């Protein structure tokens, strides 16, 4: 299945792109498992993944949230608005 991953803030510089489409060889993937995939594919993100939040459909989701084919997951580093 495919998951669209959108990187915000400094993360998109680390990854080198704001949007990446990941091909996942299974039918469902928890957000916790997505973090493992990201850690593997983008080692540069390793030190930052402990402080990111994952957002699906404008909700911050927990590690056990299950992503399905075609879902979009946003990866949000610590915020600095204002």
């Amino acid at each position, binding site marked *: 299945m495919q998951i669209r991953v959108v990187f915000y*803030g400094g993360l998109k510089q680390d990854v080198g792109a704001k949007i990446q489409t990941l091909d996942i060889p299974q039918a469902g993937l928890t957000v916790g498992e997505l973090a493992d995939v990201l850690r593997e594919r983008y080692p540069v993100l390793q030190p930052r993944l402990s402080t990111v939040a994952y957002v699906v459909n404008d909700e911050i*989701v927990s590690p056990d949230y299950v992503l399905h084919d075609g879902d979009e997951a946003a990866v949000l580093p610590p*915020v600095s608005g204002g």
Partner: protein
Amino acid sequence: MWVTESPLMLDPLLRETEDVSSGALVIFVGTVRDENDNRSVGGMTYEAHVSLAEKVLHEIEQEVLARFEVRRCRIQHRIGRLELGEPSVQIVVRGGHRAAAYEASRYAIDELKRRAPIWKEEHYTDGASRYLDGTPLQPGGDSA
């Protein structure tokens, strides 16, 4: 409208919140300053997760009205490239009396900084740029 690429204007927000039953108006505006951490700043780029940021700013407005003795609250945040002195955020609070209006205004900006999915990239006058360290987002919004 809570998040916009257009320059923030105070007058429309003041007209939108007009209220003759409010005697106190407190406005907070954040502007791009020319220095941070002893580095000379030439401008700033703000990025947002727009749809979530709009939802969060709207939620903060509703919380302000529920928690404080105030009658109006509006919050707007700019995104995109900003020059020195330009407003990045503006918060308008109106209420019967000033003590609650000040407290409500502070609550709104403090919560925005903690919860709004917005990032700033500082551009230094030496040509370098840097995303600032920030506050990790917590699930659950205002109960966090």
